[in-house]
């Protein structure tokens, strides 16, 4: 019986993560989910937020964007449009992006544009949340 999960995190730009891990916590559309090995096959959506990866007793944190997760007994595959490890998040840049996005949301624009800006805002908020939580 497998005691680890193969975790794959890919974004359109790169493969961010591909390792065996003990547990993954995901920001599911209906709240956080913890995934252990031998999970029942599941396909779900995630929202921008924080992925916690437990590997060899240590926790690693990543900020992720919208996406989909395919879970089988031995594998968790996360497809998302953004995935950044906590230690790589640039807080000043994320904060700047958040402010720009908020400023633009206040103005007038069509549906498509506003969806894009909202997504950008959610991305920077997720990054800030992860970064700030683990600084202290």
């Amino acid at each position, binding site marked *: 019986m497998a005691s680890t999960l193969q975790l794959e995190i890919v974004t*359109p730009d790169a493969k961010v993560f591909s390792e065996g891990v003990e547990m993954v916590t995901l920001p599911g559309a209906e709240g956080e989910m913890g995934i252990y090995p031998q999970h029942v096959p599941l396909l779900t*959506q995630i929202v921008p937020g924080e992925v916690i990866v437990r590997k060899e007793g240590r926790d690693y944190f990543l900020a992720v964007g919208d996406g989909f997760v395919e879970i089988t007994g031995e594998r968790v595959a996360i497809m998302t449009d953004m995935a950044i490890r906590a230690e790589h998040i640039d807080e000043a840049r994320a904060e700047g992006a958040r402010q720009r996005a908020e400023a633009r949301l206040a103005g007038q624009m069509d549906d498509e544009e506003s969806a894009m800006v909202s997504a950008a805002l959610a991305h920077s908020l997720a990054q800030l949340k992860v970064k700030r939580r683990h600084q202290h």
Partner: protein
Amino acid sequence: MPSTRDIRRRINSVKNTAKITKAMQMVAASKMRRAQQAALSGRPYAALMNEVLGNVTHHVSDFTHPLMEKRGGPKRAVILIGTDKGLCGALNSNLMREASKFDKTTTVYITAGRKAAQFVARSRRTVAAEFSYKDAPLFNEARTISKFAREMFLNGAVDCVDILYTTFISTLSQRPEIRPFLPIGAIQPVKAGMAGERTEAMLMHGPTEFLFEPGADQVLAALLPHSLNFQVYQVLLEAKASEQSAKMVAMKNATDNANQLIKDLTLEYNKIRQATITKELLEIASAAMALS
């Protein structure tokens, strides 16, 4: 026999051409690196997306989505992805040869890139829409194309949609490829090499049924359009990488040919010059002999 002046003029003009093609080669080379990088780094995501989609559509027996409906009618749309500019070797002609194999009467074309639009207009085929994409394709551009194709399929204007594009294999090799796009279910991996990987993965998973959270219809309603958008995006990246690679190689060949031509012309120029000098010497010598 051409005069030395004519040859000198030709050498100069060929030199200028060589300079231009050399510059275009450099530009294409730098764009090519970026485009290739983009195409290659998108592949893992595309492969995983295909794999997941394959698993899901095979293991969800009691659920169908309008985008998965197989109608089997003859009406077909082809998303034809060409280039904006020429000077990229046989890339477009290879692509158009494939494009002309579809039945004229039942096929409409959705084109991306100016050359694709020109081909469709010239061969008197039906255009449904023309799109353009930039040197660095944007996800938005892909989404617009994908959305248009999806709507045509959903409102019954066509029964299936294919994508015809040039897949990037290496700098020296690109091949036109046809991929079924809609209905979903006949999904094929982006790259031929990934086919093995997927079947292996399918065996590994076995006939497991997937659970969906929040619900199958909700997850699929989000996943299917997204995966289609992404497929178009990846195809645009591949086409761009192919275009820049082909352009780089074509321009390199042109530069090499020009340099070879310069060498040949210089040789001929020197021969003629020497012949002229020899002839003049002979004339002087014979004139001197006649006088003495």
